[in-house]
């Protein structure tokens, strides 16, 4: 699983959802969490963090946002060789097949459907970790 020092970027236009995700991450032991309120704000932050040598190691983004949607932020990250391997999870109120397929096609690491609790997010993060680090030894429980 991702170490507790993992640097997260949470992108959502609703402060409440950012608070909920931050609360859930804290419950899971992650405290290095920064926030952006839409894709347009997030992209320069992702670039600046990388240039400063402290890149985000996990991006969690809402899908449905004004300005720049989560799916477009995902596509922008995947198109940039600097961020294309950064784990990227989409949070969405959509659980419909066409959206899931679009996200998968764009290269999303995983997606979580709102509303969700800490156990659901933890399970998704474990899947993302296994996908991005297939050779990592599973931690004995």
């Amino acid at each position, binding site marked *: 699983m991702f170490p507790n020092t993992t640097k997260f970027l949470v992108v959502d236009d609703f*402060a*409440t959802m950012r608070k909920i995700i931050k609360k859930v991450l804290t419950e899971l032991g992650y405290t290095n969490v920064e926030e952006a309120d839409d894709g347009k704000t997030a992209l320069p932050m992702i670039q600046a963090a990388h240039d400063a040598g402290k890149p985000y190691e996990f991006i969690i983004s809402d899908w449905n946002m004004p300005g720049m949607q989560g799916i477009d932020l995902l596509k922008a990250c995947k198109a940039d060789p600097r961020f294309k391997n950064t784990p990227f999870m989409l949070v969405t*109120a959509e659980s419909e097949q066409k959206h899931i397929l679009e996200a998968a096609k764009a290269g999303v690491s995983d997606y979580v459907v709102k509303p969700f609790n800490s156990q659901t997010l933890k399970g998704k993060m474990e899947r993302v970790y296994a996908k991005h680090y297939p050779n990592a030894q599973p931690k004995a429980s």
Partner: protein
Amino acid sequence: MSAAPKVEALNPLFDKRLINAFVDGVLKTLKTIANTEATPGKPFIEPQFVLKGEIAGMVGMVAPPLKGTLLISYGKDSIFHILENMLGEKHTEINGEVSDAVGEMTNMIYGSAKTTLNQLGYNFEMAIPTVISGKFNITHADKGATLVIPFNLANNSTFYVEITVQ
């Protein structure tokens, strides 16, 4: 897989599946993000808008050829109770943070109901909610009635889900 069921031609407000989709969306959202149990009361039809509470989340629902509105109205007692359970925050006045939370909950409840309804053959599209507070009135452009579903909370407060479909 069989073809999607045909949406009944009668007014969707009489489609029990539509009511159940919204009831389930509310219960699931509150339980999951706020660990809050709500008890749905008896739905009723309201011919004209009546103000209920101090703040509401509203979303325009589009499912061609249907158009409608989802309004979720809270009094201070109900929204402050939900927020305390959801974020551990005690609020005593309606402010930007409360509005933000109402907007996000509207988003989740509509998203949840919409997924269920679209699986039943409706074709609702996603939309960004609006939050209104204070003393407001809503005049629907059509002559349609509004279905109101009350939800009761453990602190004896009530909030209301109002669905208008043209």
